[in-house]
């Protein structure tokens, strides 16, 4: 195998594919490598940890077709370090020569026959507008859990809802819901649980593309994106199991409703959070025409800030994890948000005052 390519285009796609490469390899050491296939003026790079597979392709000058598996981390570092301009990669036997400018590297390859055959999902292909999906993922994926001890919560629920697509994620402290009414990916009643890590990778590659092609299989889902210098496919296994029944947690009405400018509140929370060290919560006292934010960390100090707001309901102090509140405010669309509360210990709802398709359920923190 031998090909020649511009460094910048190659390193970008190589980095994309390498993000799915297993850091340890486990039972299959070859998975610490990245699979390269040069064929018909295209180089396809595949990284996989068997749960997530990222395949990135880029146009190159193929001088000799072939395939090889190269150790991912070192090869990405080598190519990134080369001078801008043309890079040439030549693989013969168990050795890969990488050259660019006046630099030359020689790297031992990994056994190409050991690299697993990774098939694509067999379902029908559906096209979704990138802008909607990207916005939805940005709002929802952050609410998914990173704790592998509860694997169901590490996924994002994708379910058919009123002819569109609903995205839901929770880490049990907050829950984000976003409806994409125009995205018809699933048939009525269908729902799948997609690892948030895969969707995070997808978010990174969506970029300026206009459309995403989604192919849903029985146990896998793949997303194909065309980008300026090539194409990227993210394939992931679906998570098996039942997502918690989140609908029961969203009351139909709340007695207390705070309407407030999103940006002023966000800035105030960020400032007051400076005094909320470690697990210190941020207290919000809601009054008729304002809201008072307060954080106290013993032996360090305290912060207070008042923000203008409209409030209907009894005066109420409720405390939240400031990071979760910030992430909810960042995700909420529009200039104004509504924070609805029942009491200091029940989940609160954050949404845009303009209505819309986004909802963020946030569990308070108990304070004495």
């Amino acid at each position, binding site marked *: 195998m031998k090909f020649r390519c511009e460094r910048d285009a190659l390193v970008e796609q190589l980095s994309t594919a390498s993000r799915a490469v297993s850091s340890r390899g486990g039972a299959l050491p070859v998975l610490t490598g990245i699979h390269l296939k040069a064929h018909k003026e295209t180089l396809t790079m595949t990284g996989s940890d068997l749960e997530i597979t990222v395949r990135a392709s880029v146009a190159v000058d193929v001088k000799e077709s072939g395939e090889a598996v190269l150790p991912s981390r070192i090869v990405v570092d080598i190519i990134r370090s080369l001078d801008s301009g043309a890079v040439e990669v030549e693989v013969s036997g168990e050795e890969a020569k990488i050259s660019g400018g006046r630099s030359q590297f020689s790297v031992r390859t990994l056994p190409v026959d050991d690299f697993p055959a990774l098939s694509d999902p067999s379902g029908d292909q559906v096209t979704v507008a990138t802008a909607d999906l990207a916005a939805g993922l940005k709002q929802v994926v952050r609410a998914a859990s990173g*704790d592998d001890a509860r694997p169901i*919560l590490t996924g994002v629920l994708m379910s058919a809802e009123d002819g569109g697509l609903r995205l839901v994620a*929770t880490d049990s*402290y907050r829950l984000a819901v976003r409806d994409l009414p125009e995205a018809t990916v699933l048939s009525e009643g269908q729902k799948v649980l997609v690892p948030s890590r895969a969707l995070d990778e997808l978010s990174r590659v969506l970029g300026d593309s206009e459309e995403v092609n989604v192919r849903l299989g029985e146990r896998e889902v793949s997303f194909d994106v065309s980008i300026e210098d090539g194409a990227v496919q993210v394939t992931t296994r679906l998570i098996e199991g039942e997502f*918690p029944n989140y609908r029961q947690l969203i009351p139909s009405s709340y007695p207390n409703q705070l309407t407030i400018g999103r940006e002023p509140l966000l800035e105030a929370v960020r400032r007051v959070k400076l005094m909320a060290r470690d697990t210190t*919560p941020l207290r919000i006292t809601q009054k008729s025409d304002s809201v008072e934010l307060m954080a106290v960390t013993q032996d360090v100090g305290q912060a207070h800030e008042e923000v203008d707001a409209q409030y209907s309901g009894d005066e109420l102090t409720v405390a939240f994890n400031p990071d979760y509140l910030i992430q909810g405010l960042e995700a909420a669309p529009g200039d104004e948000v509504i924070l609805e509360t029942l009491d200091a210990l029940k989940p609160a709802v954050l949404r845009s005052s303009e209505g819309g398709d986004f909802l963020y359920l946030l569990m308070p923190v108990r304070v004495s």
Partner: protein
Amino acid sequence: MRLVIANCTVDYSGRLDAHLPQAIRLIMVKADGCIAIHADGGAYKPLNWMNAPNNVRELEEEDELTWIVTNPKGEQLTIQIHEILSDVAHDMGSDPGLEKDGVEAHLQELLAANIGDVCAGMVLVRREYPTDIGPVDLLCRDSNDAAVAIEIKRRGEIDGVEQLSRYLDYLNRDGNLRPVSGIFAAQEIKPQARVLAEDRGIECLVLNYDELRGIESNELKLF
């Protein structure tokens, strides 16, 4: 479940011979065929028993009933029933099984949630931290930001110390974590396990399950 309270004499022959002289006892015949003979005392252990599968033959001679219980191993329990005081049977249906309070998973969950309260300055990195030989229960960082692997058991025995030692061996090969120290945490730690752990520089931590449960978390959860 059949419960028979009877004045009886019992003889067992098998791995050894045993004789229970005539007395009033409770004979339990379980749906799966297990038979146990209880006195009116002691917490749970029968005076004699035979595990399923069993074959029970009832013989009646001269107004006296004899049960001959045999199993495939050739063991035999002979129950001479002189007088039956009570004989009742109930269909108990299928049993949902025993849910043990304080099993390792719950201990792990509790310790993970309260690690800072149990070990001052310690913060949790991850539960079930993966290594090539299996996940270590908790990976934490201490107040000096050094990595600490914690293995949790209900009963701390030598096997648990060996297991943690293997994890530490692997974790210490990772340049991003090294040096990794270990804590062996259990509700009860056997003296031999403690000696071995301390010999290997592993700290022992006795967990009080009730105390851990009593630590009220400020974190309210949706699920």
